[in-house]
């Protein structure tokens, strides 16, 4: 049976893992290569790296981080943050990433998704969406690390992006991110029911039950979490055992 995936997220800036609230107030949380190896050992199903610095110099640093991680971590790696062109995508994939997540650049140039899917396969192209609640069952796409509202409806955008070539959706609730009070499961469910590609729920995990809710009520295929794992409040294994006890299929080995 296909399992639900538990994905620790490493927000990286200038070669260090950081953690903040609603995309700001960053705190240092360690070395990305060490963290990645640690999560791999703990049984993470996949790892996501988001380069939140995303200056050209930071991108070079990120390429080296990905190269090092790919030599010791044998689960899928997804890298995102500031990737704008096919060459940026190619560089990350050659460094050892299995997929890339594209956010702002896809909104500005949706053709990037189509082109990337044609060259690398749609499984490589993850659409990252930062969704800010704008009303009853309505969300607005934010770009530039959540700072810039675009007026674009989240569900319309995701439908279009999947038609273009996005093979997976990394869905972050701007409102819930960093607040540790649970995912926006109305959002997760709306997107999961909308498209046929897998959805990774992100933003708001503060307890193991939040993971469970995103996978059950939110119908997500995977959950991404940062702080609950970084500060060792819970291990990946504890999270999986909790979910397994609640009847969620997970990989426990």
């Amino acid at each position, binding site marked *: *049976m*296909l*399992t*639900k*995936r538990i994905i620790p997220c490493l927000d990286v800036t200038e070669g260090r893992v950081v953690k903040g609230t609603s995309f700001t107030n960053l705190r240092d949380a360690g070395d990305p290569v060490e963290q990645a190896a640690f999560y*791999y050992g703990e*049984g993470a*199903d996949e790892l996501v790296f988001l380069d939140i610095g995303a200056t050209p110099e930071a991108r070079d640093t990120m390429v080296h981080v990905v*190269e090092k991680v*790919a*030599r*010791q971590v*044998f*689960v*899928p790696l997804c890298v995102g943050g500031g990737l704008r062109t096919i060459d940026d995508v190619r560089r990350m994939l*050659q*460094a*050892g990433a*299995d997929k890339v997540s594209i956010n702002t650049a896809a909104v500005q140039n949706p053709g990037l998704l189509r082109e990337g899917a044609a060259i*690398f*396969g*749609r*499984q*490589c192209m993850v659409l990252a969406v930062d969704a800010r609640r704008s009303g009853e069952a309505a969300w607005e796409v934010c770009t530039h690390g959540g700072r810039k509202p675009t007026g674009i409806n989240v569900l319309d955008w995701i439908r279009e992006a999947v038609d273009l070539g996005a*093979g*997976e959706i990394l869905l972050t609730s701007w409102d819930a991110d960093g607040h540790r009070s649970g995912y926006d499961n109305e959002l997760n469910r709306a997107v999961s029911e909308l498209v*046929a*590609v*897998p959805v990774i729920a992100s933003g708001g995990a503060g307890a193991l039950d939040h993971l469970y809710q995103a996978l059950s009520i939110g119908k997500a*295929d*995977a959950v991404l979490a940062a702080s609950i794992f970084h500060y060792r409040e819970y291990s990946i294994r504890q999270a999986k055992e909790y979910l397994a006890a609640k009847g969620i299929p997970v*990989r426990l*080995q």
Partner: protein
Amino acid sequence: MLALTPLYTYANIINTVSGFHIPRCRSYDKKQNSLPLTFLSIMNRKSKTIAVINYGAGNLGSVANALVKLGYSPVVTSSIAEVLNAHAVFLPGVGAGGDTMKSLEVSGMAAAVLKLVELQRPLFAICVGMQVLLSSTEEDGEHRCLGIIPGKVRKLPQGLKVPHMGWNQVRQTVSHPVFGGIPDNTYFYFVHSYYAHPGDSSAVAGVTEYGIEFCSMLIKDNLFATQFHPEKSGEAGLRMYSNFLKYALS
């Protein structure tokens, strides 16, 4: 003596052929440095070679990284001669079946793979690399494939999320040393929208359930193929590659 790096190390090939820039793995260096010099020079000449086929597509870096982690020094190569001379060969694959077939034909690797099979050379094909072994694929229209295993590549049924992406179980339908130390129904990492449907069920070695039960692993003589990615399947995947290489190089 130690400065005399073998001509076709993993790092050299990666740097020169595919444009990758991955320095050689530390564990590999350590291993090599710890060997006596005389033994080292013998090894450089006589050690068995492992080729990862570079045909301009696929996840070459990941497969090579996994093999380096296991202590081998694979060559990632687009040289047909080098592929044909290797003692064990990996055929990686990511992307669309039709495009992959085209790349294999344009690069001359399609003929090389057929030759390897004819020679009974140990060959491990991964994901789309497995799919192109069949007679044809229905991905993006109908495309002829290598025809080594009779059968078709079909689209996964509707109603479930596609791609089939994530960790799923492989039920072992044969007993083989390649499964050594890997319990039945172990999870491996999958990412695909099409699946191999071999006409010859005697080649099926493992099956997986996703809406339907499909063939997720083939073994025919010295030919091994997986729909899943062992190089992305944690310790179980590394174990499978290790088992294959022990079997292939013994």
